[in-house]
C-alpha cells in the first residue's frame, strides 16, 4: 500500500535535512564548536589526483628476505654439523633459496638424522648419490616460506609507516596490497622525491672491517679473494663522482648491523658545513661495539649503508659508551632523512616501486575548476532542455535532479568516499543520465494521455508502467559500476562510486520524490490538467 502523502513528505523532509547537515562541513570551512560536538564533521575527501600527492605501490622483494634467511640457516647448519663431528661436508646455497649438502655416502644417514631433529623446517627437495658422495637439496617448507613472506611484507609495512610518521605527512594511507605489495598514499606532499627516498631505502647498516692486505685494483680485476668483497663509496650531494668511484676491499662478514640502534640524531659537522648522524646504540649494542673496537685497534672499520661505504675511519682506541657517527658530506636535509630511516630500522627486504602516480597541486586545482565548469554548463543545458521539452513536468524533473545531486554529495560526504577527477565526471554524467527516469515516466504519461485516460489515471499508469524499465535499466548500469569498482584503482574507483551512488539517488528522487509532488497536487484536486 502506498504511504500517505504526509508520511512521505516527512521522510523526504528528514532525508533532505540530513543531507544538508552532512554537506555543511564540506562547504563551511570553520565549523562552530557546538556543531563539531554533536553533528557530523566529515568532509568530502579529495583524491590524490585532485589535491595533489603521491600514490605508490611498492613491491617487497620477498625472495631476497628468504635468501637471507636461507643463508643464515646455512651458517647454522655448518656449525651444528661441525659440533656433532660430521666431517667432509660441504654446505652451499644454490639457486637462491636451496641448500646443497654434500657428504660422503657413509655419513648420509647421520646427516639426515641431524636434519630431521634440528632443522625440522627444511624439506628434502631432492637427494642423489653418485661416486660415494650423497647430495641433499634442501628447501624451506611451505609454512616457513609463507610466514617468512608475510613477515617480510608486514615488517616492511610497519617500518615504512614509522618512517612516514617521522617524516610528517598528514593523513597518509599505508596498507598491504595483494601478496607482496604495499600501497602508500601521501596526500599533498611538497617533495615527492624525498618522500620516495625515505620510504624506499632499505637502510641496512653494517659495520665491516677493511682488508688492507688486498690490493684494490687486483680485487676489482680478478674478483675479491674468498670472504672478501669490493664495495664503493657513497657520494654526498657536495661531492663529485670521485667519492663514488672510491673502492674498498672489505671482509664480507658484518661485525655488527643496524639492529642495535636505539636512536639516531643529526649533529652539525665539526669544521665543514653540513652534518653528520650520530648513532646511539642500545646496551647490548654498546657492549658489542666496545668488543669489536677493542679487538681491532688500528684497523679501518667501514660503515656501510645499503652496500655503499659512507666512511672507513681507523679505530684509534677502544670505543665505549655506545656512540658512533656516520660522516660523509651530506647537508642537513640528507642527514635528517638518514636519521629517520636509521631510527625506524632497516627493511627486511629491498623494495621496488611497482607503480607511481604523482600529481602536482596545480593540476588538481585546474581539474576541480574545469570539472565544476563542465558540471554547471552541462547541467544548465539539461535543465533548459527538460523545461522546454516537458514544460511543467520538466520543471518537476529538474527539481528531482537538484535533490538528486544534493543527496549524492551528502552520501559521498557521509561515507567518506573519495572524490576523484573521474568521480567528478561521474557526477556530471549522472546529471545527464538521471533525467532518463523522468523521461521514461513522462513519455509514459503522454502515451496514456493520448490513449484517452484522465490526467489522474494517466499519471498513475505512467509511473506504474515505467517502473520496471527504470529499475531494469538502472540495475544494469549499477552492475557495470560494481565491476568497475572491483577492477579499478584510485581515480577509477572514484568514478565507480559516484556512478553507483548516483544511480541510487536517481531512482529515489526521480520516482519517489516527484511522485509526492503529483500525489499532493492530485489530493488537493488541482490536477485536472497536466503540463507535459
Amino acid at each position: 500500500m502506498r504511504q500517505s502523502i504526509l508520511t512521505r513528505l516527512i521522510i523526504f523532509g528528514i532525508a533532505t535535512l540530513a543531507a544538508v547537515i552532512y554537506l555543511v562541513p564540506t562547504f563551511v570551512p570553520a565549523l562552530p564548536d557546538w556543531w563539531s560536538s554533536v553533528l557530523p564533521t566529515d568532509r568530502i575527501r579529495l583524491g590524490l589526483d585532485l589535491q595533489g600527492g603521491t600514490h605508490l605501490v611498492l613491491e617487497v622483494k620477498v625472495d631476497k628476505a628468504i635468501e637471507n634467511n636461507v643463508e643464515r640457516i646455512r651458517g647454522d647448519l655448518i656449525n651444528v654439523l661441525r659440533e656433532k663431528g660430521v666431517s667432509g661436508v660441504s654446505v652451499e646455497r644454490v639457486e637462491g633459496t636451496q641448500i646443497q649438502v654434500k657428504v660422503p655416502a657413509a655419513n648420509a644417514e647421520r646427516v639426515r638424522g641431524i636434519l630431521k631433529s634440528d632443522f625440522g623446517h627444511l624439506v628434502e627437495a631432492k637427494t642423489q648419490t653418485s661416486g660415494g658422495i650423497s647430495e641433499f637439496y634442501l628447501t624451506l617448507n611451505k609454512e616457513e616460506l609463507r610466514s617468512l613472506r608475510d613477515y617480510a611484507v608486514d615488517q616492511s609495512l610497519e617500518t615504512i609507516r614509522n618512517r612516514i610518521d617521522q617524516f610528517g605527512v598528514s593523513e597518509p594511507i599505508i596498507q598491504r596490497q595483494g601478496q607482496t605489495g604495499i600501497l602508500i598514499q601521501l596526500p599533498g606532499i611538497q617533495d615527492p622525491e624525498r618522500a620516495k627516498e625515505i620510504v624506499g631505502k632499505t637502510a641496512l647498516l653494517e659495520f665491516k672491517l677493511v682488508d688492507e692486505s688486498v690490493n684494490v685494483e687486483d680485487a676489482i680485476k680478478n674478483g675479491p679473494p674468498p670472504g672478501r668483497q669490493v664495495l664503493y663509496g657513497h657520494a654526498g650531494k657536495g661531492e663529485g663522482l670521485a667519492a663514488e668511484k672510491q673502492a674498498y676491499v672489505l671482509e664480507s662478514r658484518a661485525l655488527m648491523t643496524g639492529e642495535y640502534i636505539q636512536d639516531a640524531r643529526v649533529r652539525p659537522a665539526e669544521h665543514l658545513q653540513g652534518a653528520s648522524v650520530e648513532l646511539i646504540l642500545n646496551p647490548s649494542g654498546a657492549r658489542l661495539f666496545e668488543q669489536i673496537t677493542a679487538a681491532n685497534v688500528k684497523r679501518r672499520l667501514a660503515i656501510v649503508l645499503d652496500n655503499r661505504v659512507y666512511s672507513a675511519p681507523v679505530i684509534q682506541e677502544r670505543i665505549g659508551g655506545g656512540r658512533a657517527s656516520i660522516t660523509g658530506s651530506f647537508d642537513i636535509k640528507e642527514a635528517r632523512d638518514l636519521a629517520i630511516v636509521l631510527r625506524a630500522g632497516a627493511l627486511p627486504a629491498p623494495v621496488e616501486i611497482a607503480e607511481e602516480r604523482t600529481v602536482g597541486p596545480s593540476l588538481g586545482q585546474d581539474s576541480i575548476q574545469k570539472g565544476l565548469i563542465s558540471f554547471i554548463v552541462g547541467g544548465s543545458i539539461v535543465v533548459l532542455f527538460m523545461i522546454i521539452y516537458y514544460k511543467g513536468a520538466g520543471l518537476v524533473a529538474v527539481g528531482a535532479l537538484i535533490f538528486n545531486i544534493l543527496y549524492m554529495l551528502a552520501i559521498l560526504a557521509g561515507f567518506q568516499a573519495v572524490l576523484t577527477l573521474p568521480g567528478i565526471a561521474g557526477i556530471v554524467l549522472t546529471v545527464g543520465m538521471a533525467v532518463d527516469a523522468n523521461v521514461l515516466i513522462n513519455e509514459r504519461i503522454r502515451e496514456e494521455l493520448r490513449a484517452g485516460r484522465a490526467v489522474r489515471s494517466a499519471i498513475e499508469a505512467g509511473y506504474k508502467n515505467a517502473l520496471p524499465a527504470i529499475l531494469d535499466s538502472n540495475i544494469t548500469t549499477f552492475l557495470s559500476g560494481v565491476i568497475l569498482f572491483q577492477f579499478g584503482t584510485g581515480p577509477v574507483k572514484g568514478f565507480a562510486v559516484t556512478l553507483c551512488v548516483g544511480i541510487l539517488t536517481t531512482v529515489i528522487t526521480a520516482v519517489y520524490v516527484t511522485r509526492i509532488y503529483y500525489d499532493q497536487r492530485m489530493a488537493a484536486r488541482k490536477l485536472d490538467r497536466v503540463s507535459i
Partner: protein
Amino acid sequence: MELFKPGTNIPFTSYRKIAVILSTAVNLAVLVALFIKGPNLGVDFAGGTMVHLKFQQRVTLSEIRQAFEKVNLGGAVIQNFGEADANEYLVRFEKAAVEIGALGEQVKKSLTEQFGAGKFEVRRIEYVGPKVGQDLRFRATMSVIAATIMMGVYIWVRFGSAFGAGLGLHFGIGAVIALIHDVLVTVGALMLANYELDLTVVAALLTIVGFSVNDTVVICDRIRENLRKIRRETLEKIINVSINETLSRTILTTGTALMVLLALYLLGGEVIRPFAFSLLVGFTSGVYSTIFIASPVILLWEQRPVRKR
C-alpha cells in the same frame, strides 16, 4: 514538444541486413587494425614512465628533447598536451625508473639545466612497472568481457520467463552483440583520434556497456508488454512497434547524456578528454546498435510468429 509524432512507424527491422553488413564491416576493420597496429596503450597498460610538464614560456619540442638526451631512460616521445598556448607537454619514456626516487630528480635536474629553475613545473609523473601494466591489462580485458556477458545473462534471466527461455536467450545474445559492437566502435574511434587506452578509458568502456544495454532493456520491456497486447502478429512486427514506441525515449535519454558529455569534452580539461570522447562515441553508437542491431539481429535466426500461450 515532441521529437516523434505518435504512431511513428519506421520499419527499422527491414534495414537489419544492411545494418548487419555495415556493422560487421566496421567491426572487422577495427579488429584488423587492432591486430595489425595494436591499440595505442597508455602507461597504465604498456608500462613505462610519463611526465606531464608545464612551461612558463614558449618552448620547442626539440629543446625539450635536448634536455632529456642526458637522461638515460630510453627514447623519449614528446607531444603537445592541450591547447597550443598552454605550453604543456607529455613526455613518455619506455624505460622504467631504475632507482627509487631517481626519476623525478633526474628529470628536474636536466630541465633546470636546459631552461633554468622555476621556468617549468612537473604537473604529473606516472610510472607503471611492467608487471603491474600486464596485470592491469589482463584485469581490464576481463572486466569488459565479464560486464558484457553479465548484461546478456541479465536480459536472458530477466526476460526469459516472459519470452520463453529460448527467445530470452536470443535477446540476451542480441544485446551482447550490440555491446561488442559499441565497444569495438569506440576502440576504433579512439585509435583514429589517436587517444591512448588507459584506465579511465576502460572505465568509459565499462560505462558504455552498462548504459548502452539500458535502451535494449527498455525495448525488451516494451516487447514483453506488446506480446501481451498484440496477438497473432509476427515477432518482427512486435519488435518494430516496440522500437518505434520507445524511440523518443531512446533518443532523449542518450541526448541528455550526450549534452553533459559534450560539456565535459569541451570544458573538462585535457586529462578527462579521452574519457568524455569515449563516452560520446560509445553512447552514440549505443543508440544505433539498439535500434538496428540488438533486437533486429534476433530476426536473422528467429522468424517464426510468436503466439501468446
